[in-house]
């Protein structure tokens, strides 16, 4: 909450001509935006580039933000739109090798080996990448960024029920993918 209040003050300062206040905004938000973008695109270089573009766009357009208290959803919306643009531009070519991951994980490693935590983390990230963009962004925002459904609805400018529905199918789809890859951890073995 404190962060949001701080951002409100900084945005107001920037809009009133205090240009260096933008540096404080960047300091406050860069890690969050970078984390979100990285989880969405799963590419370190792209994440750096899109994070930077997000702040360049924010610098250019912040004057048009009528409600400074809504900076948080606004900056995430900017980042999300740039991620979607990047996916469209790249034609998803760099993410088409997801099938190779399943071959790699399912056939060459035993389930026990796969249970190693670092590999599990990697597999989860890859499983996340198998989701359609509109489901993945909701799962990232909900599961990792901790937004509520109304907040995600505001960021994505989609009805709340649509957001919940995408979350539901996203979770189900991730579960199916992990089971298909023979990830039989205690977490997924609910019987």
């Amino acid at each position, binding site marked *: 909450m404190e962060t949001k209040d701080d951002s409100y003050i900084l945005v107001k300062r920037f809009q009133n001509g205090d*240009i*260096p206040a*933008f*540096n404080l905004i*960047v300091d406050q938000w*860069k*890690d969050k935006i*970078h*984390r979100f973008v*990285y*989880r969405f695109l799963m590419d*370190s270089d792209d*994440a*750096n*580039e899109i*994070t*930077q*573009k997000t*702040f*360049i766009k924010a*610098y*250019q357009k912040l004057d048009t933000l009528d409600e400074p208290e809504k900076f948080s959803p606004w900056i995430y919306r900017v980042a999300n739109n740039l991620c979607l643009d990047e996916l469209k531009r790249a034609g998803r070519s760099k993410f088409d090798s997801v099938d190779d991951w399943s071959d790699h994980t399912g056939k060459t490693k035993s389930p026990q080996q796969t249970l190693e*935590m*670092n590999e*599990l*983390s*990697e597999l*989860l*990230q890859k499983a996340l990448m198998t989701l359609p963009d509109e489901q993945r962004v909701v*799962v990232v925002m*909900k*599961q*990792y960024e901790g937004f*509520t*459904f109304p907040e995600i609805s505001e960021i994505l400018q989609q009805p709340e*029920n649509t957001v*919940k*529905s995408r*979350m*539901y199918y996203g*979770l*189900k789809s*991730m*579960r199916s993918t*992990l089971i298909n890859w023979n990830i039989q*951890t205690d*977490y*997924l*073995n*609910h019987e």
Partner: protein
Amino acid sequence: MSKKEDIQNRMMDYLYNELEPAQREEFEKILESSPDLQKELDELRDTHTLLSSTPSVIPEYKPAFLTISNKSDENKANKVKPFFTPIMKTVLAVAASILLVFFGSSLSGMEMGQSEQGFYLTFGNPPVQQTETGITEAQVLEIVEQMHAEQTLLLTSLLDQAQRQQNEQFNDMITHLADYYDDRREQDLIMIADGIEQLETQTYHRFNRTNAALGDLIYAISNP
């Protein structure tokens, strides 16, 4: 919204603890009466728990540049500034005007001086002293104040204009930089794609040659 969708949405609210206590209680009753629904919820909860409990590795953020004002100052300093900025033009115009006045005055016999009525500026002889009183001191002060106010307004306007121009230049620079990165990236991708295509073609020809050689060898062995 169908009943199924409604249940799915409420399941999400329940899973992420976004239901009011009364709604939560109501949904728990539905769960008790439906083992299938309870099983589905448990499975979703397992996936949610797995995602929450597994630490993810996020690489460090490496910006090319981020500090706007400081960097912009550096950029401004590094950039070759045009000599004829609006302020410089104004200064030059004033200097040129003063020079013109001096040249003009020397050619036309202009004289400046002070009389009892105040300063005078003439071409030729100085004005005859008149006994009538002119404008009062208060009026003069008022005029001076008015001129001062006008000059302040003019200067403020010039400074604003200069500031706007510098902001525009900076924005343009950022836009060009972003475009440059885009272009460079696209060129790299095209180059890589071309390389892969060439490699594929070469590999295809080598396979063909190998197949032909093997075919010849097999034929030679089977028909001695």
